[in-house]
């Protein structure tokens, strides 16, 4: 089971190491972790996707809360939330495949960041599911390099 946890932390050095250390030290599995400043520059928000059952999620929650620099933990197990992540992909492309790739990217509201005679670089955002589908569709063309940001999320309402 994958769970999304949103963590507000003090924007101080070492916080990321504390959170990462907590996960590795207690044997929790992180799928992705993003971090960035919030509207209040003294706080950052981390969005963490963890893999585990409900008991693991409960411990993740409690252990995160125990960290001194953690201000608030919100897990999206019950609350509905919006999510997005960004992917940038470099694909093999030539004059034959280029327009197909651009079409697929269009469907996903993707952007072309760079084109050369051999490669094309695409950027797309969306839910993790959507990003996954785009990747699956483009895989046959040959993905040379790829970077995903991991999910960011906010509660609805």
């Amino acid at each position, binding site marked *: 089971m994958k769970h999304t946890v949103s963590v507000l932390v*003090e924007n101080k050095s070492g916080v990321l190491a504390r959170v990462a*250390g907590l996960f590795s030290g207690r044997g929790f599995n992180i799928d992705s972790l993003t971090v960035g400043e919030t509207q209040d520059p003294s706080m950052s928000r981390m969005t963490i996707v963890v893999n585990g059952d409900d008991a693991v999620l409960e411990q993740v929650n409690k252990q995160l*809360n125990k960290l*001194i620099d953690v201000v608030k933990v919100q897990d999206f197990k019950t609350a509905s939330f919006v999510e997005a992540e960004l992917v940038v992909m470099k694909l093999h492309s030539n004059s034959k495949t280029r327009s197909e790739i651009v079409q697929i990217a269009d469907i996903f509201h993707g952007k072309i960041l760079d084109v050369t005679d051999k490669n094309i670089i695409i950027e797309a955002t969306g839910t993790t599911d959507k990003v996954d589908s785009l990747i699956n569709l483009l895989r046959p063309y040959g993905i040379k390099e790829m970077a995903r940001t991991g999910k960011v999320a906010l509660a609805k309402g």
Partner: protein
Amino acid sequence: MGKTGAEIIMEALRKEKVEAVFGYPGGAVIDIFDMLFNSDINFYLVRHEQGAAHAADGYARATGKVGVCLATSGPGATNLVTGLATAYMDSIPMVALCGQVPTSMIGNDAFQEADITGITRPVTKHNYLVKNVDELPQVIKEAFYIASSGRPGPVLIDLPKDIQKAVTKVPYPDTIKMRSYQPTYEGHIKQVEKLAQAIKKAKRPVIYAGGGMLISGAHKELLELVDKTNIPVTTTLLGLGCFPETHPLSLKMLGMHGSQFANYAVMETDLLISIGARFDDRVTGKIDEFAPNAKIAHIDIDPSAISKNLTVHIPVVGDAKDVLQKLNKIVEPGDTAEWCETIRKWKEQYPLAYKDDADIIKPQYVVEKIYEVTGGDAIISTEVGQNQMWAAQFFKYTHPRQFLSSGGLGTMGYGFPAAIGAQVAFPDKLVFDIAGDGSFQMNIQELATAVCHELPVKVAILNNGYLGMVRQWQELFYSKRYSGTCLLKEKGCIHNCDEKSCGSTLIPDFVKVAEGYSAVGMRIFKKQDVVPALEEAIKTKRTVVMDFVVAKEENVFPMVPAGASLRQMLSGIS
């Protein structure tokens, strides 16, 4: 007019009412030491930084106040690590100050640089690297607050040398509030009510109390609860002393080396009320078979301790004292008469016992005599191993903060420096370190600390010539293959030796070692000399090392093999 970082540190120590600092100097803390030179804060020079951390820990356990230790950068700081981990596992309030290379040199692999905040992150409640002197007052204030509040723990502050010299105008704060750290003290009344209802209904309730009871200072409330409800009480190793073991409803300690009656009670109970304990595997044995018929209630200040190892039916997050006060107001007794009678019979039938000997000193006998000679009025610290378990089993603890032992980490070498810390806090009390011959050697250098500071700590070595607890496991579970556990093994020794083939060299001669440090050394071979030796040791106001030469292959019983159910107790003597 501003103050230097080092001056701020002194001001902070004074304002936090720190009376003792245990430490060791070095280049990166020389400015702080310079301040200590004319200070009214008592500084105790240890002989190894691990000793400083354990002494601060012993001081904290004995008093409930924050223990403070101080070390230089690099090796000084890394030498604190075992002490920090020990304190962390047992939730002991401590502040560790250590020096660091100047901020401009951090990350350069400078001389005596170590990333101590990185190293200690998993073994501290929190830690700080101070990079700006203006932050220092707030950081120290926070450190003392964090160390001593909620579920306490050690906090480390890394202090670069230039920060100690730099000047700030920021004053030391009087009060503190942190948006990211607000421990819950008040138990939820709805949960307390649920617990009260469960108590009313229970036929075979048991209270299982841990170190949190002592931290909370809730022993009076516990006694009141027991008086009101007639619920028997068992404690963990760390909980010893939170409930008088002389009380008819005391079950003493439970778990791997707990009393049979405590473990039977836990297996039969229908309501297990855990207070400030954390269902450690040394307590529960095979967790799936722990308290199989019971509803489990768990009172703890740390929400993450609840339902970590097993499912809890009635969680109460809060400070034990607050929760018990609320509970005592509304609780009504259930009908436990029959249960109490069963327990009384168990206690009669399966007392903690050992086979005594006419000549050879049994280690348990020494502990019993320490109890008798002191009238139970002593602070007992222990090392780790068999000595620790016998100290737990054969002394009757009646006062909170009377028993100091490394439970969670099981740190050999803890007991002696911890005893020093306790003696510093209570110069007029009798402080014993019940020691093993192996463990004592891990911090034996602190004899110098004790002697130089005229601390009359009494070390009682239960000298069995072995790393006894490991040897016991080898005897019981590894066909007596005593690999690496004989402390007297010399080059020419044969495998599977017996006592006859064993050489008589004392390695070391603890009496000579003691005398080498200007402490009093005694060696006791005969049973009839045990009490006179103890009496003499108590009479002298000096540091004393008593080397009790005890039965070599005595085992600790009862014993639940690791990972087995509490039902599978080996009683040892039949």
